């Protein structure tokens, strides 16, 4: 088996007396799509925040390609290959749709400190950004200001920024939440395409069981911040811990 690209070792964070993520040890390999499930408040998003660096860990380590990146900044981790789409839409609200994506393309191209050329003359950046917008079907909205975009389209743009970043490790936090029935498939197809690519690692926090069944190679279950189950979908879904902790309570509501 290939060595893991991303791993967490005893990763823990405490907020006061509350342990939000409790000694999670887990490894993720390239070409693998892991669904992270668990009831609300189980620590899924916090676990993401620890990996991408928005929150410093209280204990434990995050390893990227075997190197400890626990002390590094968010932007450093991003450049090293960890990309994130957020659960609550997190965009540049007063810039255009195209500009949002172009900023990501420009970051990747290392053009941020170019002070004296005209941004609008960088056709290669604009073309790349338009290509991404076409993939999420937002090309028609390219000149719209983001704050005027519908909620579903903002969610699509959120995913588009991550696609534009094209990191080694993709982290999706409920990418289809709040999307209409005809918008969600676009995003799910993109995630499926990433899986087909075989060289990307995808972490997916998702509540919709049908999505998990079709996409996931593996499921990990977080419960009260701790890793409660880890394995192939069929096995995990059948396990007692999931039936008890998650399926029983949550899924009936969904």
């Amino acid at each position, binding site marked *: 088996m290939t060595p893991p690209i991303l791993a967490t070792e005893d990763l823990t964070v405490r907020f006061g007396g509350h342990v939000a993520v409790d000694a999670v040890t887990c490894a993720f390999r390239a070409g693998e799509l892991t669904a992270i499930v668990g009831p609300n408040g189980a620590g899924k998003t916090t676990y993401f925040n620890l990996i991408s660096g928005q929150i410093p860990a209280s204990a434990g380590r995050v390893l990227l390609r075997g190197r400890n990146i626990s002390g590094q*900044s968010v*932007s450093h981790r991003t450049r090293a290959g960890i990309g994130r789409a957020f659960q609550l839409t997190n965009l540049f609200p007063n810039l255009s749709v195209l500009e949002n994506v172009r900023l990501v393309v420009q*970051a990747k191209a290392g053009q*941020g400190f*170019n*002070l004296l050329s*005209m*941004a*609008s003359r960088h056709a290669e950046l604009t073309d790349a950004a338009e290509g991404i917008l076409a993939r999420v079907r937002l090309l028609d909205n390219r000149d719209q200001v983001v704050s005027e975009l519908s909620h579903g389209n903002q969610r699509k743009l959120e995913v588009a920024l991550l696609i534009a970043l094209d990191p080694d490790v993709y982290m999706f936090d409920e990418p289809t939440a709040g999307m209409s029935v005809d918008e969600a498939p676009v995003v799910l197809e993109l995630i499926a395409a990433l899986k087909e690519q075989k060289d990307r690692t995808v972490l997916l926090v998702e509540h919709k069981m049908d999505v998990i069944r079709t996409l996931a190679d593996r499921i990990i279950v977080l419960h009260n911040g701790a890793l409660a189950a880890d394995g192939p979908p069929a096995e995990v879904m059948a396990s007692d811990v999931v039936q008890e902790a998650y399926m029983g309570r949550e899924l009936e509501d969904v």
Partner: protein
Amino acid sequence: MKAVLSGDMPRSVPLTLILGVILVCLALAPFLFPGVRTVDTAARICIFVVLVASYDLLLGYGGIVSFAHTMFFGIGAYGVALASTHMGRGFDALLVGSVAGAGVAAALALVIGLFSLRVRAIFFAMITLAVASAVAVLVSQLSGLTGGEDGLTFQTPRALGPAFKFGDELFGVKLNGKLLAYYLIFLGSLILFLLMLRVVNSPFGRVLQAIRENDFRAEAIGYRVVHYRVAATCLSAAVAALAGSLYAIWLRYVGPDTALSMEIMIDILLMVVIGGMGTMYGAVIGATLLVIAQNYLQNLMGVASGVVDGLPVLPELLSADRWLLWLGVLFILSVYFFPTGVVGRLRARK
């Protein structure tokens, strides 16, 4: 034309017209409005356009609040004054003073930025306020070097003085060094302004806007937010210092009141807000409106008060001494009716 304006067109017919009129008036000021005071006003407008534009790079594009902008302006002004005093009059002294002033300003901005831009924006604002006050006190106390409260009067090259004549008259305007000095200020300001316009429309400018909008996400797509904020602060400080150098060259004098006072800082803030934050053209309109108001509102009110002479209360209200009151009223009205500034307002109605 598009390349000169860096692709940032005014995007509004009235705005284009207003900017065109301002540009023509400033370019031909000595011929259109001959007179010591009018040309002086035009030169001030040029310099403040640059100063306000450099502040807008920080505030409007970078979302960084600084109260040290006058300090950087003053550093540039004192740079030219000190160089001219110690090296003797000459263009070399002006160049050395300007470059040194810009360098010192950028270095100081770097230090302040590295210390305070890592943490919350409010700390940066507070530290700039503290440093600016400290520098202002220092300048007025170190009278051996800076001339203290009296400031420094110095000589600029002969070619920039009224005694230097290079021709007779053109359209009734004396062709002397003062005219050359004006065009030095005008062209210097124009180049600096176009430079700022280019910077805000460059990939770097886009990153600054992204950071202003959402620094959290800017970090999460791979930009080192602190580096960009510090770079913007240094650049803005250097340009402010160059504007200060131009001001010193024009006045041939520098003192705490003209180059370092908190009043100038407030003027800059007013100009940015009135013109429109995050639009370089706002700097042009804000600076023009406010400099003209400061120089002529008093006269206008004197006339108005004369007209209503004899009526009750009105002459008192319109007395020339009350001009600051009316400036305040105008400011409140403009913020109330144009919250996005004049430029934001003009661009919004298409």
